[in-house]
């Protein structure tokens, strides 16, 4: 098997499961007894183990295996999760992340997992003080399993009866002891195969450890199965040995303890219904298998809801759809020139389909911002512990969608902002209490659409930013002069934090204060075509607001026509559209304006602003005006005709045409034509 071809899948899935582990562990920390969460954790760990073992990454498999041991104890209730345990589990996840990344980067850096494994085994053995209470119960169970494995199993009365009944029917009962090869990776799978093989030969009446345990790989390398069968010992041995990775099989006839008259009689009676008990046994065996299968199905189902696609493939899909649209337009033209009514009709339907297709393909690129957000709770938890602060992270609007490319880039700036808020913003609990605030600090991470932007805000209810200190620092560092500082408004002074080389922390901590953070944040966001701003109030908190344009994002827009071209006005900035006559336009100091519901609204003639020859506007009686809001103000835009509302995808016009006045970008209409998107804010000079 060529491992490399699965590498990408392995990495992606491992990362996903690690992410799941992280968030589930956080849940577990808050609710230590939650079994669903534990199951989830167990499943993720198990999947990682399976995958890494298959891929041959033994270190990962080893560590997850040890984790599983602990997790299983937690799940069974023999252990109860406490801070020590979750901490160690978190550390395991971190180490796993490192391991996965080192696999990804192909580096051979040795990552030490021994100490962690030692800790995990210690927990499993109940050696951590906090675990002592459950200690005895735990060792008891392990001892039991240890005792039972390797020695002939004892059959209980019921089973003895079954065996006795079987003997009467001429069937023999064997005990099959199976030893798996040392280092066998998929023990449960092997055990399952052995079970299957045996069930084909006869009825399995007992297994040690139980089938459930086998499914969970809760056994060493050996297990025993008791089987009632018509086949002889050699056949059984051959059947089991045909399964790979089986070291040794011992088939021994079961010696039933001397049957007393009475129990023989009982056996006689029961001989009437061996099938029933056999059935029972069968059910008992089938059930766990089915459970396992349904568990498996659940997993399948979850991952089945999404499909991993290389972004390049999406791009080429998008291009192909574009090509399709162009050819469709050509067909339409042919229909029109040759007046083929049938063709025109068909093309109208096709038009609808292709437009939908185009929209869907474009939407596929959009990813909920939650993909970035979901890694923050863990980070905040670690930070708050490190800094001895209590922090409650609130995340809102995770479902807000952004283009994949933006999602990939926005993570780092957000990390910086959150770290800053927690390190600089939120005070220590004692300080907060002294100020009469809730000792638990609150950090909010909010995403939402606003007009044709996506806003991401990082808010804290900490001490705020002191403008005077900022000014002083800036002067000290020689970034501005004292005179400049004196002139600065507090709000502007606070923005100095975005300057390169600025840091207010008196001491450089591990968390922040190296003076590169905010500067980097600003640069990155501007690279993405966005803006970042800060608002702050002393002792009430600060708010960092990132405004990302919807480059590549889908927006609703009103399409209008001016001269020959179609322009798109983002619906987010439109108040209403009205019809007026040229008499309605008044002039105030040579500035055209209209009166709308008692409000004076300045008028902008789009044709004039865009410098395109206008064809019919002058003598047109009825004028179409789109009322837009620019910040607090409103303006009316006169256009030639209104076409309609449509969902459009903003496309960049490339570096060559970046920064053109009044144009925010371009979009491609259903017919393949390019329409420009108006930057409403820039219309008013």
């Amino acid at each position, binding site marked *: 098997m060529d491992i490399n071809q699965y590498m990408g899948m392995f990495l992606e899935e491992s990362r996903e499961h690690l992410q799941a582990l992280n968030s589930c562990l956080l849940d577990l920390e808050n609710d230590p007894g939650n079994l669903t969460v534990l199951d989830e954790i167990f499943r993720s760990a198990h999947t990682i183990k399976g995958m890494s073992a298959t891929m041959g990454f033994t270190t990962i498999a080893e560590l997850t295996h040890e984790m599983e041991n602990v997790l299983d104890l937690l799940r069974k209730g023999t252990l109860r999760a406490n801070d020590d345990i979750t901490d160690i589990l978190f550390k395991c996840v971190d180490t796993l992340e490192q391991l996965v990344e080192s696999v990804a980067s192909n580096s051979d850096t040795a990552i030490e997992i021994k100490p962690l494994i030692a800790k995990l085994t210690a927990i499993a053995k109940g050696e951590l003080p906090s675990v002592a209470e459950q200690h005895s119960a735990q060792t008891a169970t392990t001892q039991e399993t240890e005792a039972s494995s390797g020695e002939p199993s004892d059959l209980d009365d019921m089973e003895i009866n079954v065996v006795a009944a079987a003997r009467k029917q001429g069937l023999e009962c064997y005990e099959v002891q199976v030893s798996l090869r040392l280092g066998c990776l998929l023990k449960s799978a092997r055990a399952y195969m052995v079970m299957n093989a045996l069930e084909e030969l006869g009825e399995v009446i007992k297994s040690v450890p139980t089938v459930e345990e086998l499914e969970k790989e809760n056994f060493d390398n050996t297990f025993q199965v008791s089987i009632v069968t018509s086949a002889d010992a050699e056949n059984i041995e051959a059947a089991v040995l045909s399964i790979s990775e089986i070291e040794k099989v011992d088939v021994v006839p079961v010696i039933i303890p001397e049957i007393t008259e009475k129990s023989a009689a009982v056996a006689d009676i029961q001989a009437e219904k061996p099938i029933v008990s056999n059935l029972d046994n069968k059910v008992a065996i089938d059930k766990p298998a089915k459970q396992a299968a349904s568990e498996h199905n659940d997993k399948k189902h979850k991952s089945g809801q999404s499909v991993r696609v290389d972004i390049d493939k999406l791009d080429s899909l998008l291009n192909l759809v574009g090509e399709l649209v*162009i050819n469709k337009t050509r067909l339409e033209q042919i229909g029109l020139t040759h007046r083929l009514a049938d063709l025109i009709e068909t093309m109208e339907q096709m038009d609808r389909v292709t437009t939908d297709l*185009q929209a869907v393909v474009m939407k596929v690129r959009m990813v909920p911002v939650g993909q970035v957000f979901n890694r923050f709770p863990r980070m905040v938890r670690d930070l708050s512990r490190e800094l001895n602060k209590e922090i409650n992270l609130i995340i809102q609007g995770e479902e807000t969608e952004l283009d994949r490319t933006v999602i990939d880039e926005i993570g780092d700036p957000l990390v910086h902002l959150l770290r800053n808020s927690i390190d600089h913003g939120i005070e220590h609990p004692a300080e907060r209490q002294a100020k009469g605030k809730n000792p638990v600090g609150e950090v909010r991470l909010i995403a939402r659409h606003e007009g044709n932007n996506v806003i991401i805000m990082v808010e804290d209810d900490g001490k705020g930013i002191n403008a005077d200190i900022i000014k002083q620092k800036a002067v000290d560092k020689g970034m501005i002069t004292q005179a400049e500082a004196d002139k600065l408004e507090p709000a502007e002074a606070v923005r100095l934090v975005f300057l390169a080389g600025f840091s207010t922390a008196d001491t450089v901590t591990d968390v922040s204060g190296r003076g590169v953070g905010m500067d980097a944040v600003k640069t990155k966001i501007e690279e993405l075509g966005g803006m970042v701003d800060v608002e702050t109030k002393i002792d009430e908190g600060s708010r960092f607001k990132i405004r990302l344009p919807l480059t590549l994002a889908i927006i609703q827009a009103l399409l209008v026509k001016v001269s020959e071209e179609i322009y798109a006005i983002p619906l987010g900035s439109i108040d209403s559209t009205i019809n007026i006559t040229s008499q309605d336009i008044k002039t105030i100091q040579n500035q055209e304006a209209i009166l709308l519901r008692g409000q004076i609204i300045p008028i902008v003639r789009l044709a004039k602003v865009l410098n395109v020859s206008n064809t019919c506007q002058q003598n047109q009686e009825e004028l179409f005006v789109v009322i837009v809001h620019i910040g607090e103000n409103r303006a009316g835009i006169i256009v030639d005709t209104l076409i309609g509302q449509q969902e459009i995808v903003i*496309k960049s016009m490339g570096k060559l045409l970046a920064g053109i006045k009044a144009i925010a970008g371009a979009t491609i209409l259903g017919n393949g034509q390019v329409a420009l998107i108006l930057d409403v804010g820039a219309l008013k000079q």
Partner: protein
Amino acid sequence: MSELTYSGNEIQLVVFKLGREEYGVTILQVQEIKRITEITRVPHSPDYIKGVMNLRGSVLPVIDLKKRLNLPPEEYTDDTRIIIIKVEDINVGMIVDAVSEVTTIDQNNIEPPQTVVGGIAADYLSGIGKLENRLLILLNADAILGIGQEVKAS
């Protein structure tokens, strides 16, 4: 063109016409050649920008190459083509009167532009190629796109 061998000293050119002159652009920069299609004007853009076109779902700026080189405009014909080139991550289309061929020229046969400055802006040229009795004006695509200089928004 009798030999098709390609040595390190030769470069391959896409040859196209502007008016009566023959121009060449290195084939490494050429992405594709399209027929003329609908072009949307962009207000406030430099005058040599014809507008933007739809290239399979992405928006592509199109340069009116004749305007850029100060050549007299002509009506579009059936031969008019858009050559799509890529320079430093920037994709752009150039309108040309006709695309004639792909040819190979030895670098020794290329004269630096300073020696033969004609009526057209020498900045936009990277040299003059001599091919038998033809002269090929080699475009400096970087300069055409204004890379390294501010794109003026009028």
